[in-house]
């Protein structure tokens, strides 16, 4: 410490050089305590800054995060075809379940018409019987075509997982659903006694 007004000013190179017995000329604590208490009393007037006072970049970042969260939620909840990664596999499993006859959430999401769901379920229910009535070679070809439709749906769903807003893929997926209905209807109509 240095005394600016001292004539015989000297430099202190170590705390050990200072005398521990030196007392302050007066007790400073009461003044310090009084200031702290005064600040506490005046605290209600000094409210925290409202949120709008945050820097705009924080607001923008928060909005961005919120938007992404909502987008992800919509993509996962409302557009099953937009699933990606491991969800695509579960979508495929769902599609396979659908192929086996049980309409899935995937089907419902894309084709919400109850009449469509009812007709498709009925067609899927009778599919095995109709396939069994077909000549073996025709049965094999039809099953291969149904498998091709299933692969097409899975591929489109997978691609939509990468690009959910792609209008081309959405159009092709709707086409594929329509084609599947056409095939199911044609197979349904293929009466062994009179053709289609």
């Amino acid at each position, binding site marked *: 410490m240095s005394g600016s007004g001292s004539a015989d000013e000297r430099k202190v190179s170590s705390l050990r050089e200072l005398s521990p017995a030196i007392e302050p000329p007066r007790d400073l604590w009461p003044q310090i305590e009084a200031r702290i208490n005064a600040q506490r009393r005046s605290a209600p007037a000094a409210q925290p800054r409202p949120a709008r006072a945050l820097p705009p970049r924080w607001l923008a970042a928060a909005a961005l995060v919120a938007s992404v969260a909502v987008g992800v939620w919509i993509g996962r909840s409302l557009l099953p075809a937009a699933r990606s990664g491991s969800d695509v596999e579960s979508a495929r499993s769902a599609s396979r379940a659908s192929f086996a006859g049980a309409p899935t959430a995937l089907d419902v999401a894309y084709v919400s018409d109850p009449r469509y769901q009812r007709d498709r379920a009925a067609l899927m229910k009778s599919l095995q019987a109709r396939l069994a009535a*077909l*000549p073996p*070679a*025709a049965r094999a*070809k*039809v099953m*291969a*075509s149904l498998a*091709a*439709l299933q*692969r*097409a749906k899975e*591929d*489109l769903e997978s*691609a939509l997982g*990468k*690009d959910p807003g*792609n209008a*081309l*893929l959405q*159009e*092709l997926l709707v*086409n*594929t659903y329509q*084609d599947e209905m*056409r*095939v199911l209807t*044609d*197979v349904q109509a*293929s009466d*062994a*006694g*009179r*053709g*289609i």
Partner: protein
Amino acid sequence: MGFSRLAAAMTVLFASAAASASGDKTFERQVPAEAHGVVDISNVSGTVVVSGWDRPQVSVRAELGEGVERVDVSTDHGRTTVKVVLPHSGHGGEADLHVQVPKDSELTVSAVSADVTTAGVTGVQRLNTVSGDITAELAGSDLELKSVSGNVKLKGHGQPARLHVSTVSGDVHLEHGAGDLEAGTVSGTLVVSLDSARSVRARSTSGDVHFEGNLARGADFDATSVSGDLNVRASAESGYAYEVSTFSGEISNCFDATPSEHGHLPGHTLQGTRGDGAGHLRLKTMSGDVQLCDRK
């Protein structure tokens, strides 16, 4: 009894025995029909061959295999029905039908595994099979054709008509068609040649689509697939605006236009105009490759 008579009698006897042993029976019948009447033919297995003629009659000739019960032929109010009847047990045999109809008849053929062939019929044709192949001659009238797994061969003479063809797995070959075409398949291949097209809608899931032909002025052309390739060689005197879109397929063309990419997203697009741009041509696929050329 002379030797020659004896020989003839023996020949007839042996022939009858052979026919009986094979179970084949022949059936022939002719009924009057209207020139622009309706003819319905159904057969499960075997063949159906239909040809148009100038007589106001329907003539049926059939070879019936073992297990075929009978052939019913009836006519009522301009509608002639030819039906191969099988036993109720469901274990039917094959029948080969040869039917001649007034050429302007409206013809409907329904078959399961029987192959169907038509020629010289100028009226509307509706041809349906499950697994039987279909071969038909087009003569300017509308055609509705549907098959599950049968292959389809159509040959026209450039006369415009409305053609509606769909298969599940069967291939479709169409030559010298004209007019409006709507063709769809899941896994079959579409090979189409149109002398003059007003509108074309071709749709496939995994099968390839090949088109070659002329587009009439203002024609509308749409072809889509999921994974099948689209190969289109379409010429048009008045040109067309084209739009090609793929998600992961490649786009090539014969007029050196450069496809554009979708920034960081997958997919390619090729857009532009050939000639006056009077027609519209759209090709869309997910993973199929697209080839477009404005020359046949």
